[in-house]
């Protein structure tokens, strides 16, 4: 016989003894004699004397009554222990470690096209029928983390509900973490049993069936992550596996990212890597979408196990979001598409300081068609009256005006001036001609050889300060670019035509002029050519939030949750592919998560062998002949109570 109740004997026994003592005391109180006044006790004395011969029976009845009361109490206490008739062995502690990784979403679970996870759920629900009433079961969901879905419970309904509510994610499975969690949960419990429910597309860690050594020096840590790399001890634990299986063929996108060109922020390039995890050669068509617009499609042939990289250069900046998809799709669709975000281009705030230069304004307007610009115009007199105007801009453009002190960083500065007095070391040039143009983002595409200049300036060049001559007139620098103190400066040693000037140049009439302006502004703005990080599902990402007090993230499912911030860092664990929107105070940042895991794209089920021991399906050995006895005990208790009531009223018991 086994006992259903999880109450330990050491706990149950004192309470049972206390109940017995209380019942005995109650019986003694019940049998306490009541006093009655009678007119003549002599008659009673005569009657009692007659009955002296039967006194032994009377005493015996009292003992019988007491024993009957204790028997009733014992029946009730036994029923509380939940005895089971016919069960083999004692109560078991079972951990269901359910694989909820991305491969479980493959739709090759069965011929009907159900996912591997759906098939596994059905198997687990059937398995619950083999649990005994005395078994305590814990359900753990395993992907990048291991999350308990229940506590240790006996109630099969709770277990079934937990299994039904599980869902596969897009994150890879951290089996090592899952096994350690299961092992720790089973520590100290009776008859520990571990059932690993998976499709078999796992990388099993090193496991040992021996008890862990007491000496902690034998433990090894990963040099980078610090994780314990020693074999996981599953000593004393019966380990089984429930598998749903599947096919092996899969071609997936294991890398996809995009960046702006450093030299041309208006253009960007993308990178895609495919991996054929199957055992046969496959052909796929890769289609790249900018937003919802396909911008590229190409066919790729992959041999078994081959990785193919594709670069998409000079993609137009049609959208900030790129998407790549494979077709035809296979059973594992999660890695058949990926997303990438193009780094955003913030609007340049430009302050134009000029008396009146239509050419400059026109060039800036043309540039505004290409890039986001916020233009502000001031006269030199207004600027001189309030130089702090420059602090609210990204670029200050001085037209034929040089302030006494340049605007402070980080504002970039562009100057058109032929005034030699405005720049120490400058010499006037008479009718200069551009003879030499340096390859530079400023001068890209600018043809200046046939531009006429009435006059100009020979600009001083300080190579030690990193000055770059953009173009020369023979040996005289006519335009210099400098990067200093976190900002950039371009000085053009000539003035643009204006109503108040006699001499000028015909550069504004040339195509080179707007190119020169755009090139300069692009050079000023083109600092953000980095990639937008593409996160891998299941990988924890630390995000710096030095000033934000709270960070919220809205996932691809639209649900918003708060991320805890510790020491200026928030941690994001993307479990699903898609775009995550992080709100840090007033700042909103987007991030992308893809599967991007060659390991997870390998969805071929593998034989599950732990430490040279193949894992078999569980045989929980539930006997159909088991019978819970608490019901019959309660019925017997009630019947005896009724019988004792009847006996008591006939004074057979007292």
């Amino acid at each position, binding site marked *: 016989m086994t006992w259903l109740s999880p109450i330990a004997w050491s706990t149950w026994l004192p309470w049972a003894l206390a109940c017995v003592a209380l019942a005995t005391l109650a019986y003694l109180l019940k049998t306490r004699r009541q*006093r009655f006044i009678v007119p003549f006790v002599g008659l009673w004395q005569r009657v009692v004397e007659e009955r002296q011969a039967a006194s032994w029976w009377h005493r015996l009845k009292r003992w019988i009554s007491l024993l009957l009361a204790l028997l009733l109490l014992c029946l009730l206490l036994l029923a509380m222990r939940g005895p089971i008739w016919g069960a083999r062995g004692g109560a078991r502690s079972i951990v269901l470690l359910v694989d909820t990784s991305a491969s479980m979403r493959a739709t090759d679970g069965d011929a009907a096209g159900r996912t591997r996870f759906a098939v596994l759920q059905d198997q687990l629900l059937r398995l619950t029928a083999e649990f005994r009433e005395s078994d305590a079961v814990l359900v753990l969901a395993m992907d990048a983390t291991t999350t308990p879905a229940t506590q240790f419970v006996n109630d099969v309904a709770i277990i079934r509900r937990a299994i039904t509510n599980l869902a596969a994610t897009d994150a890879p499975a951290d089996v090592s973490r899952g096994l350690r969690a299961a092992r720790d949960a089973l520590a100290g419990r009776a008859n520990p049993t571990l059932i690993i429910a998976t499709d078999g597309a796992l990388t099993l860690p090193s496991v040992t069936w021996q008890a862990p050594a007491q000496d902690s020096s034998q433990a090894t840590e990963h040099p980078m992550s610090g994780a314990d790399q020693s074999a996981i001890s599953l000593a004393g634990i019966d380990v089984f596996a429930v598998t749903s299986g599947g096919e092996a063929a899969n071609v997936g996108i294991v890398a996809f990212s995009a960046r702006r060109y450093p030299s041309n922020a208006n253009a960007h390039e993308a990178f895609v890597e495919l991996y054929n995890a199957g055992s046969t050669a496959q052909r796929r068509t890769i289609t790249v979408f900018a937003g919802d617009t396909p911008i590229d499609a190409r066919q790729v042939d992959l041999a078994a196990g081959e990785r193919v990289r594709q670069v998409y250069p000079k993609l137009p900046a049609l959208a900030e979001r790129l998407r790549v998809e494979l077709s035809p799709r296979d059973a594992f669709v999660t890695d058949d598409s990926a997303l990438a975000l193009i780094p955003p281009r913030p609007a340049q705030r430009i302050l134009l300081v000029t008396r009146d230069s239509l050419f400059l304004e026109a060039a800036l307007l043309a540039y505004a068609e290409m890039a986001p610009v916020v233009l502000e115009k001031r006269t030199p007199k207004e600027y001189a009256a309030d130089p702090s105007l420059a602090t609210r801009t990204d670029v200050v453009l001085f037209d034929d005006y040089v302030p006494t002190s340049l605007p402070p960083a980080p504002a970039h500065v562009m100057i058109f001036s032929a005034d030699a007095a405005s720049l120490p070391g400058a010499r006037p040039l008479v009718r200069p001609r551009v003879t030499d143009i340096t390859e530079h983002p400023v001068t890209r595409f600018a043809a200046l050889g046939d531009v006429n200049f009435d006059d100009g300036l020979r600009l001083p060049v300080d190579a030690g300060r990193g000055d770059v001559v953009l173009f020369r007139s023979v040996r005289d620098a006519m335009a210099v670019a400098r990067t200093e103190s976190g900002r950039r400066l371009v000085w053009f040693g000539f003035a643009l035509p204006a109503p108040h000037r006699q001499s000028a140049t015909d550069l504004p009439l040339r195509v080179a002029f707007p190119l020169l302006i755009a090139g300069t502004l692009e050079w000023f703005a083109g600092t953000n050519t980095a990639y937008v990080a593409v996160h891998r599902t299941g990988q924890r990402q630390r995000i710096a939030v030095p000033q934000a007090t709270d960070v919220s993230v809205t996932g691809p499912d639209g649900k918003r949750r708060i991320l805890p911030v510790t020491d200026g860092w928030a941690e994001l664990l993307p479990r699903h592919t898609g775009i995550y929107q992080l709100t840090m105070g007033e700042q909103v940042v987007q991030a992308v998560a893809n599967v991007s895991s060659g390991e997870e794209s390998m969805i071929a089920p593998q034989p599950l062998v732990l430490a040279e021991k193949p894992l078999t399906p569980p045989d929980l050995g539930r006997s159909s002949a088991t019978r819970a006895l608490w019901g019959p005990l309660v019925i017997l208790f009630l019947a005896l109570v009724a019988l004792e009531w009847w006996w008591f009223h006939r004074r057979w018991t007292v």
Partner: protein
Amino acid sequence: MVFGLANRGGPASRQSDALARANQRDELFDERFVRSLEQLHLVSRRIAAGSAMAQRRTRKLGSGIEFADHRQYAPGDDFRYVDWNLYGRLDKLLLRLFEEEEDLSISFLIDVSDSMLLGAPPKVHYAMQVAAALGYVGLANLDRIAMLPFAGSLGERMPPTRGKKRIFHAFEFLRTCALGGQTNLAAVTKSFVRQANRRGMVVVISDFFDHQGVEAALNTLRYHRFEPFLLQVVDPREPRPTLRGDLVVVDAETGEVQDVTVSADMLARYERAFLAHTDGIRRYATSRSIPFFRAATDVPFDELIMRIFRQGGFLR
């Protein structure tokens, strides 16, 4: 509530409850009771008219008209009473003796001990009503009656009195006499015979729950030429008390206790013992020609009186 007293509180408190109930005697002798008495008197006269006139004649020889006996003539006796017919036959001078017409003295010994305070209504109330009813009949027959409550000894008494109107005095006396005490009938009768200056009938109204028995008391009365008349008052539940389980029974008078476990068998035995006790008194009384009546308090007192009248022993 089982027979006896409710099982709440101690014996002392329960006994005081019984005494308090027994002391509620204001309604004992109400108008209805008085009307009943008059009816009883009428009935008693009818019954007495048909009964033997000599049953209640005193045996004292006197100047009555009823011939009683002869005796030898002695010089100086009245010649008018010489029975000349007998002289002619026997040639002897014999005087005729005549019975004395005299009123009867009826003494009512009413048990007011603690055991009589039990019952619903208290047995003492019933005893008082019966005593008052019989006393009225006696008064109506020009007898002298006296009321003598007793327990362990004779209490304050109502002296012998005559006349029907004196019945109210008897009512008042019975309403106010003290109650309670432990029964000692033998001592009571001894006191009574010492104090009584006239022989007569002694009506003992009691439950006869006396640890010393009643025989000695009856013998005392008989020896001193009183005519005992026994009336046992019982509560109808006394033979069959509604008790159950393990109990401690406490004597209402002595406080003596006895542990009992009351079962159906025990109750049957008790009933037999009770009846045996009562029958024992009856047999003793009958064997000595002492009228004995047993009455339950649920029998209306007038019915009891009627039964007494019909069976005789009280009316003359």
